[in-house]
């Protein structure tokens, strides 16, 4: 049911019956390592290209989620998946392996919550009994596509972020035990004219702020309703800007509950990480791994995740276009 301008309230409360997170070597060194179901030492996952490695990450995340729900992959009705690669090949190729009806998504790093919102919509509207959502990113594959070759020796500024290698999957069903998806706020595309691809946090922060404000306005809710409000991958730079911008607009989210997946996933002193993590897998693995685990343990009961995405392409950047951004918020409650 639509409430306000852009928020969906799921009356039937679709349930996340199982979720999985798969990560790479850098995530294994991070503070959330225990929340991953599978961690890979090998950047290549035994494959001969980074793109194939990313496909493997998705396959493993999907298979693990299905297994945890005590289901077979034939029981999955729909798959919705997305990633950062051109033509989203890792998702399509992983869907080929799984062989379930598939819808491909692209929302850059906001894909995880875009998928979760759409999956909940399908389940809530009774168009599906269950939907599997998955999103992934691979550090080297995205560096190669969006920036420079992985071994190229350029000096990155302190605002740069490190793309997470991993995949997160969640199985949303119309009944069962687990955290429930209660609402979703679909964001507008916001462009503040920033052009630096090594400063995505600042480019995406206004989109996150817009969606957060819309969420609380549409639902007439106070931020204290939630135990955790987490942005997707703003990193330390973008998160600070978003927090200050919200304060400026008169929406003060207490610092104890306001966090960012890109800050949580890596240690502050981890080499080459700079301002924090980014990529589709950043919000996906942190939400479907870390946050859902904490919810199942009963440590937190209500969370709001605002996955942020920078909608640029290497070509749009070279053509001197600015970086438009989008953010989608989904609330999950026990």
């Amino acid at each position, binding site marked *: 049911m639509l409430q306000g301008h852009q928020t969906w309230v799921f009356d039937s409360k679709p349930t996340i019956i199982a979720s999985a997170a798969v990560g790479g070597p850098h995530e294994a060194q991070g503070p959330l390592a225990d929340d991953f179901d599978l961690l890979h030492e090998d950047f290549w996952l035994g494959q*001969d*290209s*980074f*793109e194939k490695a990313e496909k493997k990450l998705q396959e493993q995340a999907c298979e693990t989620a299905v297994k945890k729900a005590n289901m077979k992959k034939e029981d999955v009705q729909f798959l919705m998946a997305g990633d950062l690669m051109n033509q989203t090949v890792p998702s399509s190729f992983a869907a080929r392996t799984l062989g379930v009806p598939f819808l491909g998504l692209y929302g850059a790093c906001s894909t995880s919550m875009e998928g979760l919102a759409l999956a909940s919509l399908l389940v809530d509207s009774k168009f599906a009994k269950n939907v599997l959502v998955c999103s992934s990113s691979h550090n*080297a594959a995205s560096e*190669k596509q969006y920036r*420079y*070759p*992985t*071994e*190229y*020796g*350029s*000096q*990155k*500024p*302190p*605002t740069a972020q490190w793309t997470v290698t991993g995949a997160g999957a969640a199985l949303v069903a119309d009944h069962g035990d687990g955290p429930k998806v209660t609402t979703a706020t679909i964001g507008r595309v916001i*462009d*503040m*004219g*920033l052009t630096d691809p090594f*400063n995505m946090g*600042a480019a995406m*922060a*206004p989109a996150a702020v817009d969606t957060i404000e819309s969420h609380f306005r549409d639902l007439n809710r106070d931020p204290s309703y939630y135990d955790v409000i987490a942005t997707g991958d703003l990193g330390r*730079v973008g998160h*600070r*800007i978003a927090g*200050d*911008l919200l304060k*400026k607009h008169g929406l003060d989210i207490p610092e104890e509950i306001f966090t960012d997946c890109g800050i949580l996933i890596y240690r502050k002193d981890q*080499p*080459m990480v700079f*301002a924090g993590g980014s990529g589709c897998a950043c919000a996906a693995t942190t939400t479907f791994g870390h946050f859902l685990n904490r919810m199942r343990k009963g440590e937190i009961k209500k969370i709001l995740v605002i996955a942020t995405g920078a909608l640029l392409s290497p070509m749009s950047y070279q053509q001197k276009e600015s970086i438009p951004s989008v953010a989608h918020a989904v609330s999950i409650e026990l």
Partner: protein
Amino acid sequence: MSDKKKKKLTPIQQEYQEFAQAREPKRPIILNCIKAFFVGGLICVIGEGIQMFFVTYFHFSQENAGNPTVAVLIILTVLLTGFGVFDHIAQWAGAGTIIPVTGFANTMASAAIDHQSEGYVLGVGGNMFKLSGPVIVFGVFSAFVVSIVVIFFRALGVM
């Protein structure tokens, strides 16, 4: 950012960019310059050493020893790139490793490694000069322009 760029922005965008910039960590430019100066200098000292080695032990002339010296530096860079060490050194050293011949070797080797998965012809061959191509194109072009100027002045009898 230049003023020309700023003019295209709406007042809201301008206000936000100033708001954001005040909250962003800046590049440590002075520190980066000092590091680049010393690392770049060190690479040149190593190069000088290799050159002296060729002059002393292989009886190259001072001028001819330049070519094998560059080759040795390129091989060392390619090895460091292949072992995944060079990008870490470069993050610390910045322009210090990019400006000498080491930077050029790194752009070619890193592009070749990344695109190996697309095959040797279209992948490695087609992408090896992805980053270093402009250097060659504009290098050759400027050499051409300079030669024309030299010919012109010679014809006038200046040189």
